[in-house]
């Protein structure tokens, strides 16, 4: 970690969850502000300008997804959603609303810390990571500027669309991108319904990049949600 201790805004109405998060985050070098309601969260986000927001969806006064949408109107601060709603459509909804990541309760501390690190890294890099020329993770090296890809030091030829796909995931390494987000970015708006095209291209891409395409290590599937390029954080 660089700079001063990062400030986390924890939005959670359960006192026990807050107690646990407070203990765990302060022990790992974070500073905390806590909000118990959506209204309070909005005020604190404005006054304290936190570096990352940890948001529980089930708030007493408003829905967390709605809060995410409101926050996104004025800030790019990373939002990590924490929720007991484990259904895929809930995840997709939160991510499409602008959340950066999604954690389903119950979760382990390591997983939480890994997600926070990814979120902070993206935030410090300036969100999209467009200025980053090269992304390296687990034997994969993507040169975004020169459009070149190496796996274990060996150059791999990709088609234009495969490169756009991989480039997008690489710029957001560690972050889940929903099908809709990927289709919008790679194919442009209007293709959002054709997820099977995306899947077919993803399978092709895996054959070129993964050592065992049946058991991917790099291009990870979040079933029913989207894809994520592993950045070596929080993986088993």
């Amino acid at each position: 970690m660089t700079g001063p201790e990062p400030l986390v805004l924890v939005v959670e109405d359960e006192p026990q969850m807050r107690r646990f998060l407070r203990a765990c985050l302060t022990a790992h070098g974070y500073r905390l502000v806590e909000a118990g309601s959506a209204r309070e969260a909005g005020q604190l986000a404005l006054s304290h300008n936190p570096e990352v927001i940890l948001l529980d969806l089930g708030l007493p006064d408003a829905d967390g997804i709605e809060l995410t949408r409101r926050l996104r109107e004025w800030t790019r601060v990373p939002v990590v959603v924490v929720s007991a709603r484990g259904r895929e459509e809930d995840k997709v909804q939160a991510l499409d609303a602008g959340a950066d990541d999604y954690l389903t309760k119950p979760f382990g501390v390591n997983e939480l810390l890994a997600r926070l690190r990814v979120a902070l890294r993206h935030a410090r890099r300036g969100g999209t990571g467009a200025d980053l020329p090269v992304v390296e993770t687990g034997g994969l090296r993507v040169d975004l500027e020169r459009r070149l890809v190496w796996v274990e030091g060996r150059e791999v030829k990709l088609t234009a669309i495969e490169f756009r796909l991989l480039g997008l995931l690489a710029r957001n390494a560690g972050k889940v991108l929903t099908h809709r987000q990927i289709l919008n970015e790679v194919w442009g708006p209007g293709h959002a319904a054709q997820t099977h095209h995306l899947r077919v291209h993803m399978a092709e891409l895996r054959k070129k990049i993964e050592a065992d395409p049946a058991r991917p290590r790099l291009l990870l599937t979040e079933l029913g949600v989207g894809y994520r390029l592993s950045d070596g954080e929080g993986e088993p």
Partner: protein
Amino acid sequence: MATPAERPDPDALLRRVQAEERQARGGRLKIFFGFAPGVGKTYRMLQVARELVTHGLDAVVGAVETHGRYDTASLLLGLDLLPRRTLPYRGRVLEEFDLDAALARRPALLLLDEMAHTNAPGSRHAKRWQDALELLDAGIDVHTTLNVQHVESLNDVVEQITHVQVRETVPDSVLERADEVELVDIAPEELLQRLKDGKVYLPEQAARAIEHFFQRGNLLALRELALRRMAQRVDADVRAFREEKGVEATWPAAERILVCVGSSPGAARLVRAAARMAAGLRAPWVTATVEQTGRAPLGDLDRERLDAHLRLADSLGAETARLAGATVADAILAYARKHNVTRIVIGKPGRSRWRELLRGSVLDEVVRGSGDIEVHVISGEPEPEREPRAAGPVRAGWWSYAWAALLVAATTGLAVVASGLAGVPDPQMLYLLAIMLAAIWFGRGPSVLAAALSVAAYDFFLVPPPYTFAVADARYVLTFAMMFGVGLLVSSLALRLRRAEQSSVLREERTAALHTLGRELGSALHLEAVAAVAAGRGAVTLGTAVAVLVPEGQGLAVRGVSPSDYALGGAELAVARWTLEHGRLAGSGTDTLPGSAVTCAPLRLGSQTLGVLALRPRQPGALPTDQRDFLLAFARQVAFALERVRLGEQARQSALRARTEELRSALLSSVSHDLRTPIAAILGAATTLRGEAALGEKTRRDLLDAVCEEAERLERQVSNLLDMTRLESGTVSPKREWVPLEEIVGTALGRVERLLGRGAVTTSIAAGFPLLSVDPALLEQLLVNLLENAARHAGGAGVEIRAEQEGGSLVIEVADHGPGIPPGEEERIFERFQRGANAGGGGAGLGLPIARAIAEVHGGRLSASNRPGGGAVFRITLPAAEPPPPAPAELEPAGGAP
């Protein structure tokens, strides 16, 4: 308190309670009763209504005729008027009371003038009093008006007094149903004055008849009649009161009246007389008709008339009985004895004397055999001397006369040959044979012709002198007479035989049809089968298109139909709904909704209507009583079958409920065990950690590991339970997407990696295995559950996933090298809370049931078996779907090529 002697008669009490119940259920009927038009019934009804409205009652005028009378019309001001329904009829537009609007509006009180009114064609009911009954059934109070000449049982008396025939009548049972009858009475003189002043409305077409009606003598008689009818009613009210209060200690012996009717027009008089007698004696009464065995079935006209008499009796509150017997008197007397009849009402014979001598008189026989039963003889109207005409096949065409003549000619030839050549002494016997054959083959007319021709031919050809009509010997004249007489007698006997055969054939056909129906229904095990049998049999037996409808949700569903192209339109379904709601016949051929293109019979058992039998009417006009009875008998048998099926279904349901209950308790015990155990472990470890300061580092670690592991186990149980509940609730519809199997297998392996270890699973997916149309998250769960199962039972070693296409289905197999499934347990392992013998802790026995449920929501199957080399194999079969539009090899990205 009360001594036994003072206690009210239980039957009377029951009647009283029933009457009260009916009143609590239905609306109250009040009738404003008058003796002639113009006495002020409508005026009085409106007055009463206005008063009630000022007290806040919701009263609505359904139909009131003011006939332009100013004082009556002024009373209507301020009352709520229900808009009339307009009915197009032969180019004119008729306005009629709108029953449906009234039922929808549901006022507390509805005013309905002129209860005897006949509704315009196209209305639901033929008569307005039927509308009133339906309103009462719906719990709406009705006020209505009625004149004495419209009372059914008084109809003929009024006719005698005034010589005006009134066709619009109201059954006495309706009058008796009224909760209150108010007599509106003025002096006849005053009424005549009002008539002179033009205050009484007279329909123009009836003006002449009505002039005759409004004579002082008539009015006095009518008034007396109305007052007497009213007095009867007051008497009944008093009696009801006395019965309720237990005033009377003894009760008169029960009287029971039987009236015999036939098809003659005068029988209506008998029925009315019996009704009056029954009302006077407060006795139940029966109307009986006898079908004589060996007599021809009645002709159409007679049957219609007989039906009309029975309907009349029914509307006057009689039971009706159709008897069968060799003679009328025997059948009547047998019935009377069996049913404790005390009085028999019978008509004065209208037959001429010689026929009575010939055939005997029913009256005489009844009187002779009546014993202690009183016999009342009522004069019928002069009966037209006309034998009931036989039905259908007996009517002869010209050809049968020709055949009869031919038959006689042939007989003559034979007779000439026989007497001339063989010297047969009595050739006339041959003629008798010919006459009899003519009667059997061709009917009455031809047989009479044959008799006449036989006499002539015998005279001409055989009686000396031959070939002249002259008769040498006067003795032959006697032979002629004998021959003719015997011929007629034989022919009439033959005819009777034939008719008896016809009617018994008809009866037997119907009995056989019901028998067949019963047998076929007996083997129908569910509702669809019963409906199909009923429709099929119905179409054959009733000779028309038939549909069986049963209530479903809010409406009616057609469950059986024959022939299969018979469809019911909206109007027909409305008739069926009416029948279902009211449990009565409706539609074409009945009194209710007669204009519709369907006849509906209720499938009714007791007070419950289980469905409707709808049939396309075969001929227009009222349904003859025998067909109607047969239809109802048919419907009753179907209703029995429906009820049986329904009870069977109920038994099955309750068995299912019991099974569900059993499962629920298994679930509860299993859940409480599986959830509490990890909680106990967590709680125990945590409290130890908090309380004991002097724990070694290793113990601390162990306890913390236990907390984490048990929490994870708890989480697995909870999500299993949630998944199971979600799948079982039936609300899960898979969100299908096109996914390559590789992707799902990849994530599933990722999830079980910790359990199975890396590299323990080999995957072989056949080349060209298509994209799956599945809910990816659910299918992943399925695979994870199977893999976890393999890990638990087979140690996870050598697990294989294979996938290939087999014809129209996609097969995915998960196989292991474990101990396999105990023989015979292949299905049981998919039941909930069944844990294998060597289960190493963990799951709540929900993994495999969830896996199967997921396969099933995708329209697929999941089965288990043992593989030949040892180990278990789970086989998922999914239907192959239409492939998606192929992904283009390379879609041009929005931003252009590099």
